[in-house]
């Protein structure tokens, strides 16, 4: 059980309590993140309720295929992340690393798809400004929100990927033992990013398809 004491950090005297603290701290941070996105969703809701038609027209120009592929990718990455966490708790180091790697790959695939989608959007001049092709004017608001929402989500995901890679290095070189409190926080964060996407998907891609 020597590796257990390695996992302990100041000021904790008990690994169970330390994991609990990391989980709790992470959940408090997520509550904060929820409010961060809530401000964005609230703006979206206000504008959509007053410009339903414009939002329908604008949403029809989003790339449904890319959005759907990305939804599947992220949902799957949540699965691999959960398995990685369970493996870490069971102290299966190689399995943890394998599933973390899979998660990173799925996340990167998401970003690549997102990049292709952005490329298509830019080709179609779907950036609010003088060359913006859609009418009425409020479609610009939808697309402004589109860029901000997906952009912020992508930044969150990129941060998540970065953290997972760092954690993999720490685990791989056995600087930090897998069963410590680290995985707890990483996994909760990753799922949260997925959660945000689950709401973004219908709001951005599923409007105006009928």
């Amino acid at each position, binding site marked *: 059980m020597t590796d257990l004491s390695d996992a302990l950090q100041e000021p904790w005297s008990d690994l169970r309590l330390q994991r609990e603290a990391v989980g709790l701290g992470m959940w408090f941070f997520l509550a904060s993140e929820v409010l961060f996105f809530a401000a964005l969703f609230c703006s979206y809701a206000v504008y959509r309720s007053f410009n*339903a*038609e414009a939002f*329908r027209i604008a949403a029809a120009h989003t790339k449904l295929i890319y959005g759907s592929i990305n939804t599947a990718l992220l949902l799957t990455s949540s699965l691999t992340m959960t398995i990685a966490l369970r493996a870490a708790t069971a102290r299966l180091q190689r399995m943890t690393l394998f599933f973390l790697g899979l998660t990173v790959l799925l996340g990167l695939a998401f970003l690549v798809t997102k990049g292709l989608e952005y490329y298509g959007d830019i080709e179609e001049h779907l950036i609010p400004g003088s060359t913006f092709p859609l009418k009425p004017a409020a479609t610009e608001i939808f697309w402004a929100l589109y860029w901000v929402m997906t952009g912020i989500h992508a930044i969150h995901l990129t941060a998540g990927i970065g953290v997972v890679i760092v954690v993999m290095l720490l685990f791989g070189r056995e600087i930090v033992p897998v069963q410590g409190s680290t995985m707890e926080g990483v996994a909760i964060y990753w799922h949260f990013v997925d959660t945000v996407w689950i709401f973004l998907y219908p709001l951005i891609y599923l409007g105006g398809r009928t």
Partner: protein
Amino acid sequence: MRLAEFTAQASDYAVRVDTLFALLSIISGAVVALVAGLITYFLIRYHRGSRAPRGETPERLDREIEIGWTAATFFSFLFLFWWAASDQLSALVTPKNPLEIHVVAKQWMWRIQHPSGAREIDELHVPANTNVQLVMTSQDVIHDLYLPALRLKQDVLPDRYTSLSFNATKTGVFHLTCAEFCGTDHSVMAGRLVVVTPDEYARWNAAQPEGDDLAHQGERLFHSLGCSGCHAPGATVHAPDLHGLYGRPVQLSDGRTVAADEAYLRDCILLPDKNRVAGFPPVMPNFTGSLDEAQVVTLVAYIKSLGAAASTGSR
């Protein structure tokens, strides 16, 4: 400049606001006196080493005191809310057929357009004892029309109409100024509110150089911009008839029904795609950038006059 330009009570509403202010001041004064008095008394009587008796107060009493003053505070605040809210609600009732004066704010001036067509800058002439409604919009950032003598203030927003209703009871010259920070010369975006008797107001209007009233200015603009090419009854292009439109409910192409008020008409001119009327093709050009707010005001006034004309049958 005299202080009375700010502090005069130029309307009944101002008197009511001052009464509420006085009431709150008295209550607050009493609370401050009570708290300060008690603290001072305790500080003197129970300063360290004094001979006043000490000892515990019974816990049950503490609890009752606590509940007592919570309830007392709560109910007095409820009373104050009721008083303030009823003042507010009575002020919200817009009087019928007010004299409608348009205010366009821009960095850093106030442009006023009277229904007669008279215009002025940084000065607002209004008749006393008349219901006046200011309909205001901004050409750039958010401004705020502040009339201290009327105790009134309202933000003036870009691309939206806000309004301010009052009935001034005192003639005289009062202050008018911008209260929402709007950039470099915010502090000098000020002018005068001139309350005159209705007779003088009529005389003042007549003396203004501009001959046409707002609606006629709008009519000229309507023709010169080519609006009449589509919106005239005999036009070949399929466009909505504007006669009697003002105030009527309009069915839009996305299923909503809205009242054709000033904001709606304004949007129709500047953002024709926002509220497309059901059954018409989207061919209306967008006038954003080619019209300033003052011109939009005249066009809206013209369309409103069409509504009035249709109902009286004079056209």
